[in-house]
């Protein structure tokens, strides 16, 4: 019964539905809510959440494929900015970290131009000598410039959440520099996984997952090291780098496939 109530509450509260659709959905899920089968109710709930994401994507982008991609790319900028901020803090580069934090908060606030203006100084200050891979910072600048904010409106709640997150990073990362590097990679993988799931319904998340994975891939320092490649093809069984590389390539490829399918389904096929 509790889950039945959850289903009814979802039809009333999930964003993205107009009042008429909300009423129709409420009527349609009533039967599932009444039925005793937990599996049916759970499936209906997942379907409703998916529909909510799809409708938000369609309304937020006006069914414009390019705009959908740009909003997804800006979402990637938010995640990568947080990662860059954490890495700069771990390396004790406070000015660089503050700049990355500003970029992160401005992006979360839905600002259109402030992150773009900050992108240049971020490349100069954070990209050189801060210990953060230059390719990662360059990738961050690129996705910031290409991207546009979600729904084109300010989000102060997002800015507050980002500020709290950055404050948390500032408290933890300088104390645990070694852990931070591993944690940034692990958190990135978790975020990419979660975005891929959401991306099935809202293509902006799949685009973001693809961009995050691609930036992670190109910023892998060992890619420029010939000896690592030589070891990669000669070592048997494959080492840790091979596994990480495979996972990153898998993330980019899967993200690309999910994003393409979700874009076709959600905003229509490319002309």
């Amino acid at each position, binding site marked *: 019964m509790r889950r039945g109530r959850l289903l009814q509450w979802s039809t009333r509260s999930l964003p993205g539905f107009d009042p*008429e*659709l909300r*009423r*129709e*959905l409420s*009527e*349609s*899920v009533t039967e*599932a809510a009444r039925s005793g089968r937990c599996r049916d109710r759970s*499936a*209906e709930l*997942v*379907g*409703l*959440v*998916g*529909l909510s994401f*799809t*409708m938000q994507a*369609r309304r937020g982008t006006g*069914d414009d494929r390019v705009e959908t991609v740009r909003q997804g790319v800006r979402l990637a900028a938010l995640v990568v900015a947080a990662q860059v901020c954490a890495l700069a803090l771990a390396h004790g580069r406070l000015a660089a970290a503050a700049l990355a934090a500003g970029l992160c908060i401005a992006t979360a606030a839905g600002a259109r131009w402030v992150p773009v203006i900050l992108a240049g100084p971020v490349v100069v200050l954070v990209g050189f000598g801060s210990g953060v891979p230059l390719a990662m910072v360059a990738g961050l600048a690129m996705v910031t410039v290409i991207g546009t904010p979600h729904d084109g409106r300010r989000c102060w709640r997002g800015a507050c959440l980002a500020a709290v997150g950055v404050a948390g990073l500032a408290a933890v990362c300088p104390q645990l520099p070694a852990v931070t590097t591993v944690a940034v990679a692990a958190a990135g993988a978790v975020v990419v996984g979660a975005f891929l799931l959401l991306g099935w319904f809202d293509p902006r998340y799949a685009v973001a997952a693809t961009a995050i994975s691609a930036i992670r891939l190109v910023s892998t320092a060992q890619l420029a090291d010939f000896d690592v490649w030589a070891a990669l093809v000669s070592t048997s069984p494959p080492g840790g780098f091979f596994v990480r590389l495979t996972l990153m390539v898998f993330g980019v490829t899967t993200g690309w496939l999910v994003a393409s399918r979700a874009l076709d*389904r959600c905003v*229509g*096929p490319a002309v």
Partner: protein
Amino acid sequence: MSSSQPMREPTFLVLAALARHPAHGYRLGKEIEELSEGRVKLLAGTLYAVLDRLHRDGLVVQGDPEPGDGPPRRTYSITAEGRVALEHEVRRLQASAAIGELGLGWSG
């Protein structure tokens, strides 16, 4: 919707049900369940996502609210373009079925 791509089953069933007569979402879901003899039961999220996509592609239109018990409900109707897409898909399925029947020796 590209006519070169096969339709997904929920899309096909929604168009097939609407080709019989206009219906509102809830009734459509029930009809599809009946037409498929209980085999296909579309989730509300799936059904309305399909309707929304078909409306965007111009294969269905939203009609006048249907009077009845309770509040008026938005009805959906198939368009001429939707009917053409449905006919195209039916022919494609018939052609595939004919190949299968030939393989099984059912075609006499």
